[in-house]
């Protein structure tokens, strides 16, 4: 649970994206692409889920990447090498189904880029042809560009403000790729992680081309072992627990409206606590 390395991956104004390498021998040995951990920063802390971005079995570490958003991620960002987490448990959730699909598109938005990295790596090892589309608000907030470029056969970047890559959204590129008919027929899978509106829009686009699309959902969790049902999502009209049935689901079947609303349950309280701690 001890932090071995810390790196500020990106910074824009007061917004930080941070990478931590944490000693966790058992989790490191077991973790597979798509899985996550739950951690607590201190004994009064909240339990939050974070995707396992990378692992190093030799050094017995796992890598987490997060954007400082709520109180917990901000407190996490203040920890330094040598500090220990209060609690760390995993690997949780089901691993991504890594198969030889053929041509796949991976779309990452914001800090979601960190979450597509382990999946991209695993898909590449299975000899898939990888097209990667990364989107960031601005150039300074783009992460993992080099690492993902290396394993991609085709590689695109968009920024909302046009400071880097193409000005616009990942969905612009996705639509272009798919609207060329021959190409659209060749893509077997789209894997996307990012803000809910991004994943939702991607789902709409790929649904019209009938391309299998997997998303990793960031529902609110407590225990993350199926005990509380806080993370329930509706998929194809049925209720699932994101923590044990997911975190990945078929994007075309997700009730996005419900997810969007459920993720805002504690919005006011989060603002309040961040103001209170002046963080």
């Amino acid at each position, binding site marked *: 649970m001890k932090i071995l390395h810390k790196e500020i991956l990106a910074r824009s104004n007061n917004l930080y994206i941070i990478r931590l390498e944490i000693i966790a021998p058992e989790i490191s040995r077991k973790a597979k692409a798509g899985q996550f951990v739950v951690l607590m920063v201190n004994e009064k802390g*909240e339990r939050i889920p974070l995707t396992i971005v990378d692992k190093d079995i030799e050094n017995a570490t796992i890598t987490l990447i997060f954007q400082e958003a709520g109180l*917990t991620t901000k407190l996490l960002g203040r920890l330094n090498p040598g500090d220990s987490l209060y*609690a760390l448990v*995993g690997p949780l959730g089901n691993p991504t189904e890594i198969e030889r699909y053929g041509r796949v598109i991976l779309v990452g938005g914001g800090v979601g880029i960190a979450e597509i990295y382990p999946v991209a790596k695993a898909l590449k090892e299975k000899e898939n042809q990888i097209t990667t589309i990364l989107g960031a608000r601005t150039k300074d907030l783009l992460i993992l560009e080099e690492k993902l470029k290396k394993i991609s056969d085709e590689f695109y970047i968009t920024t909302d403000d046009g400071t880097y890559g193409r000005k616009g959204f990942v969905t612009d590129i996705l639509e272009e790729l798919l609207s060329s008919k021959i190409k659209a027929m060749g893509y077997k899978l789209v894997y996307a992680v990012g803000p809910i509106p991004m994943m939702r829009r991607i789902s709409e686009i790929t649904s019209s081309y009938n391309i299998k699309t997997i998303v990793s959902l960031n529902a609110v969790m*407590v225990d993350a072992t199926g005990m509380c*049902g806080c993370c329930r999502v509706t998929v194809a009209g049925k*209720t699932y627990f994101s923590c044990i049935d997911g975190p990945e689901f078929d994007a075309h079947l997700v009730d996005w409206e419900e997810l969007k609303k459920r993720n805002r349950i504690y919005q006011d309280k989060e603002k309040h606590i961040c103001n209170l701690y002046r963080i």
Partner: protein
Amino acid sequence: MKQPIKVKELAVSQRINNFSEVVLGYTENEALQEAERCLQCKNPQCISGCPVGIDIKRFIFQITQKDYQGAYFTIREKNNFPSICGRVCPAEYQCRKACILTKKESNFASEETINIHFLERFIGDYGIRNNLEVSQSKDNRFFRFKVAVVGSGPAGLSCAGELARKGIKVTIFEALHQLGGVLRYGIPPFRLSRDILDKEIENLVKLKVEFVPNCIIGKTISLNELFKEGFQAIFLGLGAGTPLFLGIPGENLCNIYSANEFLTRINLMSAYRFPEFHTPINVGKNIIVIGGGNTAMDAARCALRLQKINGLNPNVTLLYRRTEVEMPARRLEIEHAKEEGVNFRFLVQPKRFIGDENGFVKKVICLECRLGEPDASGRRRPVEVEGSDFEIETDLVIIAIGLKANQVLTSVTPELKTDKYKDIIVDPETMQTSIKNVFAGGDIVGGEGTVIEAMGMAKKAGSSIIASLLNN
């Protein structure tokens, strides 16, 4: 015959703005008077009503002789956690119901039966205060054995206690960051004070039990790996961890909680002390709790306290589809909930939830019920009355209608045979599962039960583990 000695409780006004323990327990004098009431039957029925077979007659007699130490060890022969059981056991359905003073045909113990649970609590607390300890056996045949216990709830703790007393090296693996399982995340501190829980767990540490929190067997470590690490036997006390929902429209609206989530946020994560503790919980003005068991009572009473702490007028309504008599909750909890101001509405079945434009619940549509023929549980089945629809305004709903098996371990361990409810199948004689040297007990065997029933199964498994270790 003398009247039963009433146990002292916090006044309602002192209860509902905090999470302090409500029942204060007997003083020595009160315990003596209550113990004197025991008839010391030649053929005591109470013992048969106890899932772990405590020699109730004997420990009550020892109390009358002021031999509290003796009484403590009499209980500890059969039960490792008298202070916990004295607080949470539904005695009116168990030992007290079996007591000769209970009127025949009664659904639960009559009032005049001996308050066995309060006496047990008195003795358990006496043991804690006086650091009474059960010593580890000196039998060196056991020192070389290592056993893994999965889950630190009532079953796991109990099994660990049984084994550790023999001198077996026990390691308990717990998924959460704190120990105690449902005793920690489920049962609120006003029913089981955290000091008592910590003390009872400390007793295991004194017996050299090792605890590994933040470790999910089936995820972090597999059963096979535990054997490879040198554990010769494994006990699974996984609990019935997964909450059931009603399966009606609108159930995933915001501010509809499972009781497990609501209670975990409060009890485990201390959300009632937000923002000092960082886990949030929402508080409604009109809170609805659905269900009739102890969990529903716990949720309702927590909800009421949350309202009070947040400066709202207490307004919690509990909906139950049968009537008060059929409620599976402990009578004392029902009484406490009523005293504290929880409203009860019986013969009501929720049919759908309606939300506002932001996806928060604002109404529940219900049907009235009447009682029909008895069902498999022996209780009269609620029958919905057609056309009786009515609505209740609400802004927070807690669903407390039961739990089912958590499948985190069983789903990745196909050799571990389960029944149609995904509960683990065991040999009822030995509690051994379909895997050799893997035993199970508690709610993951046979579904939801009481703390003491879980302990009973765990004890049985403990004995089988000891026997099998010696035979191998």
